[in-house]
């Protein structure tokens, strides 16, 4: 489903990602591992076309980085659920509104939105805080809102960038189980993480990066 071919992003300071060629398959749960600064987030940014590759290309379903239009980029992003490493919530909206945003944006009905958002908030354990402004949440709460917002729209692909960094082990586990469940229903998941304890019992495909390149272990 995702094909990277000689994918290179050059930030001009020697950093970035280099010459990545690989494939991610539809319905897979892929773990993206590697030390800090190795390029995991950058690779994900290329996947939602926040950066276009300097060299090589990436194609996701029918979208190809070499010939995608602006309108198609927005369309692509609507199909991907992104859990940003730094959350990126709209601080002056409340929890409910932040989570509902992707649904509101694509024109769902009020009733459908209420039902769906309530279910998701319950799953991440934030049903009771739905009225609180995102700006005043605790770190872990923000992270769970970000997760809820990514999965609420039933995307075909979830990009989870370090989704448990601010969660206690129990909450981390809940979230991971949630992602597993969604994956089992057919959504592809790519998750960057440093939490080896969390993933040690899974046999998901692991991709290791170092210094902007893939490494074989």
């Amino acid at each position: 489903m995702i094909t990277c071919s000689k994918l290179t992003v050059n930030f001009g300071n020697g950093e970035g990602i280099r010459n990545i060629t690989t494939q991610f398959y539809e319905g897979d749960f892929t773990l993206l591992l590697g030390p800090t600064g190795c390029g995991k987030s950058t690779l994900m940014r290329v996947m939602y076309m926040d950066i276009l590759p300097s060299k090589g290309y990436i194609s996701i379903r029918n979208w190809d980085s070499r010939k995608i239009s602006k309108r198609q980029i927005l369309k692509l992003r609507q199909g991907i659920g992104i859990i940003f490493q730094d959350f990126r919530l709209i601080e002056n909206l409340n929890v409910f509104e932040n989570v509902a945003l992707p649904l509101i944006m694509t024109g769902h009905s009020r009733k459908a939105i209420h039902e769906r958002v309530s279910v998701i908030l319950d799953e991440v354990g934030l049903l009771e805080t739905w009225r609180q402004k995102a700006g005043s949440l605790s770190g872990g709460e923000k992270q769970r809102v970000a997760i809820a917002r990514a999965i609420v729209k039933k995307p075909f692909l979830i990009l989870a960038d370090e989704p448990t960094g601010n969660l206690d082990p129990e909450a981390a586990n809940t979230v991971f189980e949630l992602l597993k469940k969604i994956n089992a229903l057919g959504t592809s998941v790519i998750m960057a993480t440093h939490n080896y304890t969390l993933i040690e019992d899974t046999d998901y495909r692991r991709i290791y990066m170092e210094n902007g390149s893939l490494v074989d272990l």
Partner: protein
Amino acid sequence: MRLSFILKQTFINLWTARLPALVAVFTIGISLSIVIGMGLLGYKAFTSFDLFQDKFEIEVFLYPNLNRDEITHIQNKLADIHQIKMINYISKEEAARIFKEEFGEDIHDILDENPLPPSFNIKLYKQMTHPDIVENVAKRISEFQGVEDVKYHKEILILIEKYIRLITLVGIGVILALIIAMNILIRNTIKLSVYARRKQIAILQQLGAGGLFIRLPYILEGILEGALGGAFAGFLLHLSFQVINFSVQYIFDVSLAFSPLIYTVSIITGALMGMFSSSRAAKSFMYLFARDDY
């Protein structure tokens, strides 16, 4: 759901970013009141030249020996000239009074008989005081039978003409410059107020939000701020009119009439400017791709 959310977001934005909102209202209010106020003032100054134009007159001197009928005949012919607004007959006696005023001597003290000629004092419509037109009229009159001479202050006429042209030119220039300047100020202020929230816009774009969904809250906000700013401008103008009237009444007993239309005009202008400015501003921060430089 989309529309109600956008409406709600507009008000949330207005509240959480009340500083930029207030600044935008103030800027629009002050700018509009300056443009409209200076426009009205300029117009007032321009029309007050009427006073000078009203003072302009042509004197038609007749031969001293004309009889009543001949004089009436000339008067009728003058009345036929459509540029003429007012005709005033100055008899020999009237002329003597004027002589006394001009030269400080009673003509009857010096001579037995009054040698001064009768004359007509003519005023033209103020649209007709262009030097060329006046010259034409004067020439026509001087050819009437019984008219000895036609006199008017040509140099003053030309001077006033020049002043009117100057004031019109400078006035229009200043108003145009003000319109441009205020437009820039309003647009910049609104741009800054959106700039302060550019990360929000970036986040929405990263979630795949399209053009109008992002811009509409800003556009609505701009309309609201513009309308409020316009109302504020109306209020400022209303106030200044009263202050001016109050202070000027000791000098002249004229007073400026404040038309409620000014409120309508400034509110609509403000709303339109707010709308376009914030629409453009929001658009200018809709980067599809990430930027690390801000």
